[in-house]
């Protein structure tokens, strides 16, 4: 995946390892910046993150306190995106909702990526029956319809934040294992790995210091796309009324409640859905752009 450094400035001078790293990174950034889709994704994601972090500062109203005199107000100067059936400002609620969605997205995907990396490294490195066993287990989890698993899971364990993190992580790891394993297989027999082995490096050292950094690119792409998937899944769960039960508003729950006002207050279900879409789109753009930046061949074709 990651190509060896090919310095263009001065091909004769020998290149030190330090320089190789820098030029690789610089090349990546250059490719990334040129990719408008990736930059757009990064901007969307950053804006969402800022909105979530500074929600208490930006939000014009309290997200939970009801104002019965201002129920279902259409978007206007007072309520930028309208208000809900209890007179709460939709924009404020969306800003606070960003906290839940983003935290869930990152933590659950963190769980999935960690499982994926560890199992993928082990399966790819050891091969044999260990590989077979891990891949069969992966197949099993891959085949269980994710959404159904989630629904059953929240029935067994209360839909607390931790159980939601775990459940979403558990349904998203199989593709990560496959990708990681493939990456390990592709570099395992390369000279630099062989020489590390010959020098007597321990297996964990080879796996985490030598193999992982060279295989991390595609995993980052997968993680970015994965966050998008997790946020979508969480919103579906909330929409079905099975999501995290806390007073803080979740985007999916808002669409669900807004559904009842479909013919009287369009803004109630439209804006939360729009925000979900925008966030997911941001992560998809980012992942897509990273993929392009990491695979120069995709650009030049």
């Amino acid at each position, binding site marked *: 995946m990651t190509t060896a450094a090919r310095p263009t400035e001065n091909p004769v001078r020998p290149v030190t390892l330090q320089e190789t790293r820098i030029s690789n990174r610089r090349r990546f950034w250059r490719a990334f910046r040129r990719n408008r889709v990736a930059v757009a994704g990064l901007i969307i994601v950053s804006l969402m993150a800022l909105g979530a972090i500074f929600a208490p500062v930006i939000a014009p109203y309290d997200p939970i306190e009801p104002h019965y005199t201002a129920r279902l107000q259409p978007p206007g100067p007072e309520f930028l995106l309208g208000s809900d059936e209890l007179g709460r400002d939709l924009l404020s609620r969306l800003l606070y909702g960003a906290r839940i969605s983003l935290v869930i997205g990152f933590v659950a995907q963190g769980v999935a990526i960690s499982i994926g990396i560890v199992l993928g490294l082990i399966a790819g490195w050891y091969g044999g029956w260990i590989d077979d066993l891990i891949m069969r287990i992966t197949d099993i989890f891959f085949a269980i319809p994710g959404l159904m698993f989630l629904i*059953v899971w929240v029935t067994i364990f209360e839909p607390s934040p931790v159980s939601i993190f775990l459940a979403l992580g558990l349904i998203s790891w199989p593709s990560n294992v496959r990708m990681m394993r493939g990456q390990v297989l592709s570099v395992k027999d390369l000279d630099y790995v062989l020489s590390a082995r010959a020098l007597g490096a321990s297996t964990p050292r080879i796996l985490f210091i030598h193999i992982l950094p060279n295989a991390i690119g595609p995993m980052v792409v997968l993680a970015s796309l994965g966050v998008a998937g997790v946020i979508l899944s969480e919103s579906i769960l909330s929409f079905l009324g099975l999501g995290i039960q806390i007073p803080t508003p979740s985007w999916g729950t808002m669409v669900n409640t807004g559904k009842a006002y479909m013919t009287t207050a369009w803004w109630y279900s439209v804006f939360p*859905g729009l925000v979900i879409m925008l966030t997911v789109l941001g992560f*998809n753009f980012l992942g897509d752009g990273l993929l392009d930046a990491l695979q120069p061949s995709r650009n030049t074709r």
Partner: protein
Amino acid sequence: MALYILRRLVQVIPTLFGIFTVLFILAYLMPSDPLRAVLGEQYRRLPPEVIEGIREELGLNDSFIERYVQFLGQLLRGDLGRSYILSQDVSEIIAYRFPRTLQLMIGGMFVALIMGIPIGIIAAEKQYTWIDHFLMFISLVGVSMPVFWLALIAQMLLTQSKYGIALFPVAGYEQGSLIHMVLPSLVIGTQLTATLARITRTAMLEVRGQDYIVTARAKGLPYRMVLIGHQLRNALIPIITIIGLNIGGLLGGSIVTETVFNWPGLGRAIVPAIERRDTPVILGILLFGSFLFIIINLITDLIYALVNPRIRYS
């Protein structure tokens, strides 16, 4: 080829068994007091002996191993058990509801095929023009859209005159009625349409530079014939794979789509079953869904091996 099919079939068995075990453990862990869920307030008023009797009758008192072995035995005989609450066998419920879900899945697939593939071909042909950028932007939006929200927007704009026009019925199912199928099919098919458009574009571009395409062009074959007969035909392998992988997604999408459109399929059955803690129904539908997914994957693999003989020998 026969050997390959056999090997793939044998590989499927442990996977099926594993899925069964995982799902059974989940179902076993479920706070499985359907009595309490169904009876609610009345539950407390029933004498304990009666409750104990019903629990015994439903087999809720047996140990994990007993229930596991018993259920596995049943399953091998094709019996999925009986609903705790509805007086129906689980296989009956599935037999009634699956055709309706399948109908939606086929509708969604149809939408995806007639829209996704042409969009992908056009985008590939117009690579790097604004048409390409626009189509790919739209398909990323399609992938990013929450299904339930899309369903609500469709209902808002196309089924009522307050914010849109009343073209289609809001929800519901009618035997043989095509008009009831339009919106749910569009909604369930959107994600696959967008995915197919992206994959088709990539696959078409990958094939375009190959020697045999150049040869076909050089022979003076009409442009369209090369495009469809040579280029698309060879781009079909990744397209078929993606279709196979995404049928599971259609099944998952049916939960939300059927809930919003009140469509009497499998997805619409599972949410109430969970609310009532009707374990046999939940387990039955989940098993059925996963098995279906595995079978579809197997078929995809076999088709794949059929069109690409190199696979068989790896």
